[in-house]
């Protein structure tokens, strides 16, 4: 997220828009002298197809994945507060015949590491793009026989993907062969995995969320099965994010309308108190783990010492929470009730 601005997109067809909002309150007077507490719409632009995923490439550019299979870079011009389409890769994802009118396949996930952009889609394809380069740097066709739901960087040259038959795969982009370097899968039923995120500091720790709302923590150095399975939501978990600067905190959002804050900062006296309206419901969990000798709280195996505090941040849940993002003390999430919520005092 850039400066005090957050991002929002309406996830529907026909009149979808990419919008930039400002939630700054540090001396910024609203355009009409309005109450600065409300997010202000700065600018927006039409988008073709549903917005499936998006990410900031740098301070000014945003990469957007569309349900039509296109991948677009938008540029936000801060001097006159406008958005413009900077670059587009048409039909980056497609089924069978690229030129057929119905050949488009949704691009489901995008991840950036300036200037590289990796996208995955319903066609099981992985694309590696470079900003300002017209053609894809690399394309892995049929990388997966099922739908790839999400992608994230593991290291600068390695990516992680999750698919709809419950597999987590590592791909080494330096290698020319079109095979994953490692495949992990869930025990038991092959429940589709919808989201993936890597611990910001400890790169071997990966979290994934599944269609049954289960949160899985993996240690990719060891074994092919998850380290912990945490029963969380009652429906699909759409996104999972480690807090970028405070990785003892994890956030997940789900189709069941809840947004959970997972806190593993183990010392009870040090835990931050969360001020938000509506009260909270907390549960103490000790998760079932496999024996590990690792330091991280996420992989810890001592049930008495290790207690995770889990809080539902939404008091009156109705429709699905589709997406969330966090930066510093600020949490943004969007729901199917066509509303965005901003919480600027997460650790107050």
């Amino acid at each position, binding site marked *: 997220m850039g400066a005090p601005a957050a991002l929002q997109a309406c996830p529907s*067809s*026909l009149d979808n828009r990419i919008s930039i909002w400002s939630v700054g309150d540090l001396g910024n007077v609203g355009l009409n002298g309005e109450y600065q507490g409300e997010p202000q719409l700065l600018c927006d632009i039409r988008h073709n197809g549903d917005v*499936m995923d998006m990410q900031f490439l740098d301070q000014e550019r945003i990469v957007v994945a569309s349900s039509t299979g296109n991948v677009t870079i938008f540029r936000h011009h801060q001097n006159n507060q406008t958005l413009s389409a900077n670059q587009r890769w048409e039909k980056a994802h497609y089924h069978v015949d690229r030129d057929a009118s119905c050949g488009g396949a949704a691009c489901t996930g995008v991840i950036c590491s300036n200037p590289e952009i990796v996208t995955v889609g319903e066609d*099981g394809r992985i694309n590696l793009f470079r900003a300002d380069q017209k053609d894809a740097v690399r394309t892995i066709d049929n990388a997966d026989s099922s739908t790839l739901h999400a992608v994230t960087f593991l290291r600068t040259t390695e990516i992680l993907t999750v698919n709809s038959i419950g597999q987590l795969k590592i791909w080494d982009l330096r290698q020319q062969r079109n095979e994953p370097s490692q*495949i992990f899968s869930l*025990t038991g039923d*092959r429940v589709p995995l919808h989201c993936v995120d890597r611990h910001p500091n400890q790169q071997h720790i990966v979290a994934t969320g599944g269609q049954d709302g289960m949160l899985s923590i993996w240690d990719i150095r060891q074994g092919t099965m998850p380290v912990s399975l945490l029963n969380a939501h009652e429906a699909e978990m759409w996104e999972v994010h480690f807090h970028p600067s405070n990785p003892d905190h994890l956030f997940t959002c789900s189709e069941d309308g809840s947004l959970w804050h997972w806190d593993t900062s183990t010392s009870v006296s040090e835990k931050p108190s969360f001020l938000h309206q509506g009260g909270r419901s907390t549960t103490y969990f000790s998760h079932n783990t496999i024996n590990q000798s690792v330091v991280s709280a996420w992989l810890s195996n001592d049930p008495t010492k290790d207690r995770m505090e889990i809080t539902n941040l939404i008091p009156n849940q109705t429709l699905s929470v589709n997406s969330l993002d966090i930066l510093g003390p600020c949490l943004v999430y969007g729901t199917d*009730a066509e509303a965005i919520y901003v919480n600027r005092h997460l650790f107050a």
Partner: protein
Amino acid sequence: SEQAAGEKPHCELQRTESCKVQVTAEGGKGKALCGEGRPSSSCVFVVRKDQDIYIQTLRKLFNESHGIFIGLQRSEEEFAGKSRKTQLVQVSKNYRSVIRACMEDMHQAAVSARDPALHSQYSTQVSILSAMELIWNLCEILFVEAAVAGPLLLRLLDWVRLHVCDVDNMVREVLSSENPSKHELFWNVVDVFVLQGRMDEARHLLSKEASANPTSVNMCRILDDLMKKMPVPSLGNTQTLTEMELKWQHWHEECQRYLQDGTFASNSHMESICKILLGDENAILEKKELMTTWYHFLVTRLLYSHPTVKPMELRFYAQSSMDLFLGGESSPEPLDTILMAAFEFELHQVIKECSIALSNWWFVAHLTDLLDHCKLLQSHNLYFGSNMREFLLLEYASGLFSHYSLWQLGVDYFDHCPEYGRVYLELHIERIPLNTEQKALKVLRICEQRQMHEQVRSICKIMAMKALRNNRLGSALSWSIRAKDAAFATLISDRFLKDYCEKGCFSDLDLIDNLGPSMLLSDRLTFLGKYREFHRLYGEKRFSEAAKLLLMLMTAHIAPCSFWMTLLTDALPLLEQKEVIFSAEQTYELMRCLEDLTAGKSDKQKFQDDDVETMKVEMLRLALARNLARVIVKEGTLEGS
């Protein structure tokens, strides 16, 4: 359209007498003219889609009111009695504040719209929303809060003050001028305050007149005094109605005395104000332009002639007010009819008139639901079986389903229609276009939560077929697993096997090697998994295990008969190995399988078999025989097998 509210179809129909048939498309939302089937009729119907759901700013109305609606349904029996009423009034206020918020947004949009057509559309919407809020507010006072005599008048005064804004500009102008009392519209503004019962503000202006005009100081003081002393109903329990009426009677007589003494004779403005205070209808009517509406006139009349009016008495005053105000010059508009019905406490009439006047069901659906929660609607059934509330909610929700995103709101509305909600949902949910997998997943989740198993299977089948057609076998399998659709899993496995036969190798090994427990979904799938395992074992040179597996596939009838030939052919390299792999027992089994296979064919089939087929069978027989020979010898020697 002259149909009763209970029969209103989903789209608007206008009867036109015309024999032409034309189809026009308006900006993507088609308009169609259709002729009626009967040969004797020459009627043509103009049909159009409900456009309101596509207006951007109204979406906020739909989304927010959905939240309020759900909250109301969930709060059902938590409270009782007085606190329940307070709760319901709060819900009503919430709805109204959402309407007002939308009005604001719509107004902003109208102001900033450059296209005149758009500007006029938005402005129209603003006035419609304003009318809706006006009606809702009145219904809240009369039905939800059910204000009693006393507070009733106060609420009505608030209502009028809130909604008659035509005079606001004038008021602002006069108040902000250097010398208000010298302003030409000064007395108009004082009149406005008096008509709206805003005594303090009127007195404030009068004091300005007093200081500016020494000759009228005395009159101003007296008038000010009268205004100060005017008894008003109280909201609390500080006085009973009888007490208030008594005080009011005395005050009224005092005003009468001053008027008859000619105290205000030298100033026509103040004299007319005094007459208004006395409730003189003609005097009040003279200020028609300042009141602008008959219901303002009604409330002013009540304030100055009958402040302790009871709810049931309103109808008489309302009817006469409207007649007096309109004076036969103009006929009542739809809004007037609706308000009149409300004053007459004819709930059903209100709902019916609103249904006719408004272009979509939002208003009547939510208002009726609220009134139903207030237990004000009798539950008599309409002729097709469901009650008024449910009928309106069903219509509203059905309208939402034609929208690509608002359909999710519709689901919750159907959930709260006990009679027909479920069946409506079942029909609508299957028709939502599934353009992305994520959307399909959302729809599926809704179906699963409501045990709509048939719809789950149907949707999963659609998605699986789509995947299959796009050659996404893993996706197709994933959908079959979700629906526990064994038949489809079999179909997918057959596809894999077919690919294998054609290409000689497996595609999508990442899928087949990682089937896990889902392998058990269908026999064919199990076979596929095991068959792949056989290949893996062979690749790892674990021949005896591979051999055992291969045989088991046939003898345990896991393999389909059509595949036996392929399996037997796969056995060939094992039979040809230097070391003996198949035991005698196993070899006999293999031979039996082969014979079963060939015996099954009729003579005609054997004749049609090409050379390759026959050669294969011959080769197998030979290999089996040789293996048998070797193994008998091996097993028979004293060194053991």
